[in-house]
């Protein structure tokens, strides 16, 4: 079938790739753009390992064709922080042992990032419900929840200090 040019803004950079319509966004991100942080876990939109942010939405990129993302603004885990300046969520996941094998982590942090944009003061219940589209097999979530709540508190404190 016809390859199409897909233009996207990924982590703030304009990208153009050539893709067959059936190429899933996750594979294009991982293999054509070298952003291998998000992973393929279940392929049926249940596990959330492939979560990225698209136009302000948390999206399972294994259940979206790259062509559907034409014109979209995409943020992946690689766009959240830099090695010298980690995102608060990344810091808190490290601090509170919010990860083990690391396979779900990029999707989890990306999802948590959006969650905190929409709800900067979540309760534990809000966090648990908010990340319920992301499966972790290692941690039992307890420390993930702790990491996200702690990141929220830190972000809020920083916001307050700035005011």
């Amino acid at each position: 079938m016809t390859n199409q040019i897909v233009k996207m803004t990924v982590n703030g950079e304009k990208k153009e790739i050539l893709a067959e319509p059936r190429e899933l966004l996750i594979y294009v991100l991982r293999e054509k753009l070298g952003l291998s942080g998000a992973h393929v876990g279940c392929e049926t939109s249940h596990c959330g390992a492939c979560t990225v942010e698209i136009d302000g939405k948390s999206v399972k990129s294994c259940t979206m064709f790259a062509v559907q993302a034409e014109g979209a603004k995409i943020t992946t885990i690689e766009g959240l922080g830099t090695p010298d300046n980690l995102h608060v969520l990344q810091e808190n996941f490290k601090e509170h042992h919010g990860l083990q094998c690391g396979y779900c982590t990029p999707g989890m942090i990306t999802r948590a990032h959006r969650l905190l944009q929409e709800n900067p003061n979540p309760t534990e219940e809000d966090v648990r419900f908010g990340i319920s589209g992301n499966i972790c097999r290692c941690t039992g979530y307890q420390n993930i929840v702790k990491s996200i709540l702690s990141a929220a508190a830190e972000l809020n404190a920083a916001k307050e200090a700035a005011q």
Partner: protein
Amino acid sequence: MITAAFEYHRPSDLAGALSVLEEHGDDARVIAGGHSLIPMMKLRMAEVPHLIDLQDIAGLKGITIEGGMVTIGAMTTQHELINNEALLSATPIIHEAALQIADPQVRYMGTIGGNVANGDPANDMPGLMQCLNANFTLEGPDGTRSVKAREFYEAAYMTELEDGEILTQITFSAVNAGYAYEKQKRKIGDYATAACGVLITKDGDKVATASIAMTNLSDVPVLSEAAGAALVGTSCDAAAIKAAVAAALEDIDPTEDNRGPVEFKMHVAGIIISRAIARAWSRA
């Protein structure tokens, strides 16, 4: 899990979408959120040589509430339904039900139009729309028509939607009623073992109207008129609820699956229905 190859179409208006549909007939399908269709394509259980993405059609999006009528564009996502303040006050049952669909990521993508149009008996919105007595607007090559949600579903994945038509919007009267959407599932992301939407209005301390619809308990969503009738005029006491549940159970025909056998589903359905009624009444 890789889909078969297909051509991708992304029309910017409805006429464009309809013309692609007309051109390719059975070989074309529209895609909304894609979270039902894409997995089916990946499993190669759905073959779609021409995929028509509706996301650029502005007219299919948005929620308007005017003169007591709610109009929701088919491409409105569950996430947008949940976060729309006006809709929350106009018809709060939608908020309650939409939060019980799938998981956050799926709700960002999943649309009300896709949920009602694909005819999956496990989807929550069809039963809810029957409960609300909503109308679906279908546009096709021969023009526009309206079909009641209560008359839309024929069998699993079989609906009134004709080849060449697109479901474009959903309308219903804003309901100031006691409401509840009750759903039992095994985990987040699962379909319902049993689910039930209830709307009750009150006249004094009696039930004035009652609308009771169920999800995933037959091969189509089921509105039980008899169950509603059993409540009308009562004070929604235990006996009335029991009668309504008995009537509702007469109208469903669940099948065994991994969630359990029929006997279990019938029992749980009864419990879920009675809880939904009680909760709706408490809010009436």
